[in-house]
């Protein structure tokens, strides 16, 4: 290792402790007679120690989401609708129905052997618990409100059942799993809002 360039190339391995004994000896011999390379190595170590201590994440001083949400385009407006808009969203999704939705999510989904059953169990438990909360509070709702809420819930449940039936017919289809997950999430989000509506 006579060339200063070789030393520079070796610095990452030196820092990682990956140099073999022979290369290490050659490097040390070069460093003993080359001040410039000694400086480079010392500096790399000195800066490296401080760089490792840098925070990986720095929270912004203000909430930037408020400037992002309004820019998210058409899909946002549909989902940002108030609770009564959820039924419309569910209908739109049913109209698109499995084919289009599957095409949309297929690209984002990777195999996940075994994970889905557990995930679905979690969703089912959450939906059941929220369903109980809602049933407890529904007596406090005006009959008209209750009817609207329950009609919407029915639409969401029908979408879920349809997705679940499609998955039953094609159990290894990961894209359909994602559709089922999305349907559960809509049901849970709806029940959360409906329950809060009953409490207020």
């Amino acid at each position, binding site marked *: 290792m006579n060339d200063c360039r070789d030393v*520079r190339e070796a610095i990452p391995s030196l820092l990682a402790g990956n140099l073999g004994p022979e290369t290490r000896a050659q490097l040390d011999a070069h460093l003993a007679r080359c001040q410039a390379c000694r*400086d*480079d190595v010392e*500096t*790399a170590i*000195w*800066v*490296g120690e*401080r*760089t490792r*201590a*840098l*925070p*990986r*994440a*720095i*929270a*912004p*001083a*203000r909430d*930037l*989401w408020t*400037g*992002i*949400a309004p*820019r*998210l*385009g058409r*899909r*946002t407006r*549909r*989902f*940002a609708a108030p609770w009564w808009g959820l039924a419309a969203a569910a209908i739109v999704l049913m109209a698109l129905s499995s084919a289009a*939705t599957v095409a*949309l*999510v297929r*690209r*984002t*989904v*990777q195999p*996940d052997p075994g*994970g*889905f059953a557990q*995930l679905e169990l*979690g*969703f089912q*438990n*959450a939906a059941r*618990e*929220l369903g109980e*909360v809602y049933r407890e509070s529904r007596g406090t709702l005006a009959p008209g409100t209750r009817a609207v809420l329950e009609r919407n819930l029915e639409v969401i449940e029908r979408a879920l059942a349809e997705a679940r039936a499609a998955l039953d017919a094609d159990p290894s289809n*990961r894209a359909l*799993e*994602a559709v089922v*997950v*999305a349907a559960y*999430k809509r049901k*849970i*989000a709806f029940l*959360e809002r409906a329950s809060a509506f009953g409490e207020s």
Partner: protein
Amino acid sequence: MTAATLALHHDTGTGEATAPRTVDPDVSTAAAGDDRAFERLYRLHVGRIHALALRLAADSDDAERLTQDVFVRAWERLGSFRGDSAFGTWLHRLAVNLILSDRRSAWRRTRRVVPKADLEEEMAASLPVNVGDRLDLDAAIAMLPPGARTVFVLHDVEGYEHAEIAGLTGVAVGTSKAQLFRARRLLREVLDR
């Protein structure tokens, strides 16, 4: 919110710790158009992206604007995310591309002709007078000349290889290596005096 849904949110949370081949419901749900799922992804990743933008742009207003642009772009491009890397990795790469392209045009607009030999001097002169004996590394990074700062942040902070940096920035691999050594020397000079 009930204990069950809290546990659920915890279980289905995403992040770089999650194996890339796991189905991430928030990612697929957001890709299907659910902005609340996307907001959860934003909350999870905003600190990482903001830190990157802050270090590359060296300006807190620019960093906030760029962070917002990154998430808007990510929403638009979510359909092209194939799940063959973790979502966090995909988002990070998208952020680097967007920020570098923004910086390139910013630097073109404001480029001053500074002889290379004067940069060290200029940087030393730009230090605040009363920093005491400890200057924050992030503050020192912000004072680096743009080219050296970009390579230092991407290589030493973010772990990119020189070949990747060359591909991202359009400089030669040799230039990237030289900029890295220059950046480290400058940082040590201003921090260690």
